[in-house]
């Protein structure tokens, strides 16, 4: 389950070698904006040397590529997912074909997934088509680039990305993939991070990207269901079990009729509570 996804610039040895101690669910080794244009070659060499040396277990390894052609140089058995910047249907098709070729060439036993970065007005409008592309198992909203395209400033309230957040969520939920919220860029403002994360979660985001290790703990905690939610979900599932044994089609909990969507939601909460 992707609650927290930590960006780590791929040309930064001190951060690379601590990737698995930060306790994020996923790490995104960044070859794009986190690496200076003149250092892309060094970042690729460092990343490959790092992956050759350290086995990162229990951690999803995501690479934000700069160009699809990067993959020829950085393909590695430890990579689980590719984060594709400025994703659109055409680039996703090309990425799928490239991955298919490279998986065969490198004799990989697993199929590499794709998270599509939704960060242009066009990709927001096409989010549904993007979400259904092959291998895509998550949509990540990139609000900073999007705000630049829209010619607006980012605010703490986030009204300027409300539409984009909803498009990402509705598209992702339609295809039952992850809706991942944009990072909160003020790394010193944990109270702002809390407000932003709770709001994104209330809309339907399933996780959030982060750009500093100090954001992980809060995000992980906030994306877990509350104790009250878990207790209520357990109550519903117990009542359902009892109703099944008694052959009852309908039942109530605390005076409220319980139907299939509520049962499904309770099952989801219990699943999420396992972390």
């Amino acid at each position, binding site marked *: 389950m992707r609650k927290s996804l930590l960006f780590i610039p791929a040309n930064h*040895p001190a951060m690379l070698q601590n990737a698995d101690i930060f306790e994020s669910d996923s790490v995104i080794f960044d070859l794009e904006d986190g690496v200076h244009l003149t250092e892309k*070659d*060094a970042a690729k060499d460092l990343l490959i040397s790092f992956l050759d040396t350290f086995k990162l277990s229990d951690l999803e390894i995501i690479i934000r590529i700069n160009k699809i052609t990067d993959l020829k140089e950085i393909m590695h058995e430890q990579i689980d997912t590719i984060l594709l910047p400025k994703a659109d249907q055409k680039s996703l098709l090309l990425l799928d074909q490239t991955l298919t070729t490279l998986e065969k060439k490198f004799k990989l036993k697993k199929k590499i997934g794709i998270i599509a970065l939704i960060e242009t007005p066009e990709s927001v409008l096409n989010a549904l088509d993007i979400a259904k592309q092959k291998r895509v198992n998550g949509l990540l909203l990139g609000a900073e680039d999007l705000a630049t395209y829209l010619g607006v400033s980012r605010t703490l309230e986030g009204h300027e990305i409300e539409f984009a957040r909803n498009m990402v969520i509705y598209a992702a939920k339609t295809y039952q993939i992850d809706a991942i919220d944009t990072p909160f860029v003020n790394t010193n403002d944990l109270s702002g991070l809390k407000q932003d994360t709770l709001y994104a979660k209330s809309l339907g985001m399933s996780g959030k990207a982060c750009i500093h290790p100090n954001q992980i703990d809060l995000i992980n905690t906030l994306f877990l269901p509350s104790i009250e939610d878990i207790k209520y979900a357990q109550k519903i599932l117990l009542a359902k079990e009892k109703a099944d044994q008694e052959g009852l089609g309908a039942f109530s909990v605390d005076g409220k009729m319980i139907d299939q969507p509520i049962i499904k939601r309770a099952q989801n909460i219990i699943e999420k509570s396992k972390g």
Partner: protein
Amino acid sequence: MKTFATAGTFESNDCIVTVKKSDVLTIEIESVVFEQFGIQIEKVARQTLIDMKIDHIHLFIKDKGALDYTIIARIKTACKRLGVYHA
């Protein structure tokens, strides 16, 4: 035609590698942990050059506590930038 190339940074856990074309193979190391790890750094550097089949070069490593994987990567990048290695 480049006569030298560098890779890496001065940040901790990193190193700056400078390579220059030369008639012979020479390795020079300056490290904050030279007493403890100087021999190991040289061993890693020498093996990396052997793996890349490079034996005519002057290699200078200014180390700030880099692990082996970083030293290997920085040497490769510097040699690619100099045009003496193509992976």
